């Protein structure tokens, strides 16, 4: 019988492939170790990741590298305004089978382990919505027939923050389905020099498969059984609650706060991070490290706050500063050490 919580040996055995993955991805994308760490954390937590950054920063390269390192099937869809839902999920095609004509479902690109949705905000909301069921329930329904997606299934989407003409901002329901929204920042000069030295234009970097599909599934299962102390769960709950208007000082200007799915996502990601760091339990530090990528796209500001220059990132940071790890008051006779 499997223990409810991951054992030390399981954690130790998971740390080796995770380290190998980390090394492999750092060979693909230089100078983005933090982004790689979060990306790995996301996939170990079985979450979908939305990458936002300027063109040419290596978003697509990172996703392709991840798929190769994990030895998973990968499909790439370039989202355009004329893309239709059926182009993603697949279409029923009229075929002659045994002398009779009938509709046969032709699976779309969504039937893969790792779907790279490039420039997802260029597709119409109708097409974007085609991914809703796939992302949450890992299955698609076409003409009343439900088709289960392969396991594991991730959507790694990218979007470009510039050239916003002709784009459709992702609806809140879909944004909420992404575990992380990660911002891909530009590289430093030293990193650029390394890229120029070690890369050639048009030549893809070679990435070896470092983890088998089964081993990766085991890592994901172990991450789920990481111990989440009650006090950490309480901390997550208070942070998510504080994102709602009126629940904290920092939430001034927030129109909609984070959903319960956000709390679940934060807990899952914290456990994945704890596993990646070889710890048997999630901690306050994990929550604090992951609150920003988990919550920043789930906190929606009102118009006035946006006009005042507030950002959701600033709100989440303020919430982290405001909400104590323990819901305990300090007596007046004691003070926090400077």
């Amino acid at each position, binding site marked *: 019988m499997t223990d409810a919580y991951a054992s030390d040996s399981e954690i130790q055995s998971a740390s080796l492939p995770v380290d190998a993955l980390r090394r492999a991805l750092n060979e693909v994308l230089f100078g983005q170790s933090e982004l790689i760490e979060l990306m790995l954390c996301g996939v170990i937590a079985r979450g979908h990741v939305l990458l936002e950054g300027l063109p040419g920063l290596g978003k697509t390269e990172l996703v392709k590298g991840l798929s190769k390192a994990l030895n998973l099937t990968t499909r790439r869809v370039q989202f355009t305004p004329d893309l239709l839902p059926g182009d993603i999920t697949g279409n029923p095609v009229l075929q002659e089978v045994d002398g009779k004509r009938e509709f046969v479902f032709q699976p779309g690109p969504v039937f893969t382990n790792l779907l790279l949705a490039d420039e997802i905000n260029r597709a119409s909301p109708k097409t974007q919505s085609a991914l809703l069921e796939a992302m949450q329930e890992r299955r698609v329904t076409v003409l009343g027939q439900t088709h289960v997606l392969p396991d594991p299934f991730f959507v790694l989407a990218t979007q470009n923050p510039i050239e916003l003409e002709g784009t459709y901002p992702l609806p809140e329901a879909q944004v909420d389905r992404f575990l992380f929204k990660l911002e891909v920042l530009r590289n430093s000069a030293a990193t650029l020099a390394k890229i120029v030295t070690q890369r050639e234009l048009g030549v893809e970097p070679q990435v070896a498969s470092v983890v088998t599909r089964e081993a990766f599934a085991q890592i994901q299962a172990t991450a789920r059984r990481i111990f989440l102390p009650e006090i950490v769960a309480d901390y997550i709950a208070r942070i998510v609650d504080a994102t709602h208007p009126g629940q904290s000082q920092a939430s001034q200007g927030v129109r909609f706060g984070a959903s319960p799915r956000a709390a679940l996502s934060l807990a899952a990601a914290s456990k994945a991070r704890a596993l990646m760091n070889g710890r048997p*339990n999630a901690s306050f530090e994990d929550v604090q490290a992951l609150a920003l990528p988990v919550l920043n796209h789930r906190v929606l500001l009102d118009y006035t706050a946006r006009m005042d220059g507030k950002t959701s990132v600033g709100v989440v940071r303020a919430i982290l500063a405001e909400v104590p790890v323990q819901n305990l008051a300090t007596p007046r*006779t*004691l003070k926090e050490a400077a």
Partner: protein
Amino acid sequence: MNPGMTDQAQLSTAWLRQACHTRRKVNVGWWLARAMPLLVVAGVLGFAVIFVLRSRGMELGWSQVWPWVASVFAALMLTGWLLARRQFISSSQALVRLESELQLHNALTTAAASRGVWPALVAKVDDGWRWRWRAVGGPVISFAASLALAVWLPVAQDVEAKGPTVEPQAWAQMEDWLEKLKEDKIVTEEEKEEQLAKIAELRNQPPEKWFSHESLNAGDTLKEQLQRDIKQMAQNLSTAERSLNALKNYADQLSVEAKEQLLKDFDQALADMKSSALELDPELLKSIAALDPKNLKGLTQEQMKQLSESMKKKAGSCNGMCKNPGFLGDGEGEDDELADLLKKNGQGQGDGEGPGNGGITRGPGTAPLTLSDEENNFGTNKNEAVSNTDLSRAQVGDMLALQNGRHGVDKSAKGPQAAGVVQDAGQGGEQVWRESLTPEEKAVLKRVFR
């Protein structure tokens, strides 16, 4: 025994001991935080109580005070503990505090839940809380200082409130008058005591009220009443004595009307003396009432003189009191009236060359204002303008305003005109754009029609 297990047991003990230390620190902090305000309030109240007791003459030293202080202190600390109990933290909460402060990634909580191993002890275990000594020491010092001040501060003890050393002057005056009246046998002892009882009633008030408005008013009223009574008595005695003296000594010179008047005056004076509020000495009243003014010839000259002297002396005594400072008015001389009676007799019943000056109560002179130069001026012929600025209260038909005005007559030439001839181009359009358009609109129009 497994050495690892031993290590874990030792680490567990060490960490839990640290957690207990933190827990105690926080709980004592809460206890003090709840008790300190009570201590400050108790210090202030204690100061007031001790100070008041000392100011009332109670001798209070440290030996008497400290048991009470200790008891109150203990009671306050107990109350503070009861109030703070709800905020006390547990050892597990203290453990969380330690691991969050030491960045241990919740390893202590996990180990306490038997889900992980106890981490190694750090060199310096710090729970991140420091004592705020000012918040702790301030109230204690304030409490002690308040009580010490209350015990040591020199205090002026309250002296018994004494009444004024002097009493209202009117009381002594009245007592003097009554004493004098008694000595001269004008009033009886009972009458004197009755009047003195009224004064005593005023005197029996609390001394601080002797000079209150009500007391002074009552005293003055009593004094004025007594003055009126004494004065009335003096007048009655004088009138009686004068009437008797005139009827005895000047009967031959008086007319019948004058005698009747004197008899009437005597009777009136006697009646007044009997009904006087200030009861006259019964012996004196009896001796006067026994006289028959119509038949005074029965009295010897000596008796008459003695009686007259007695009455005159008593009247003089009363009048003497009336001349004291603060007494109402002056008396009226009696010899003048007798002289008038004797004089009236000569003029009224003599040859009668002219009418007399009227009755004895009528004095000379003219009625006031009879021949006065002043005239009554009612301002009948004076006209004043009345204006009403409050139009809301104006009546129908009221004139509100007058102003000069002229009709706006068009004085331009009018008459037959030839067809096609325009005498006046008019200024309507120009007026519109000059007066009703905004500066921006004017600028636009100017640019367009330049």
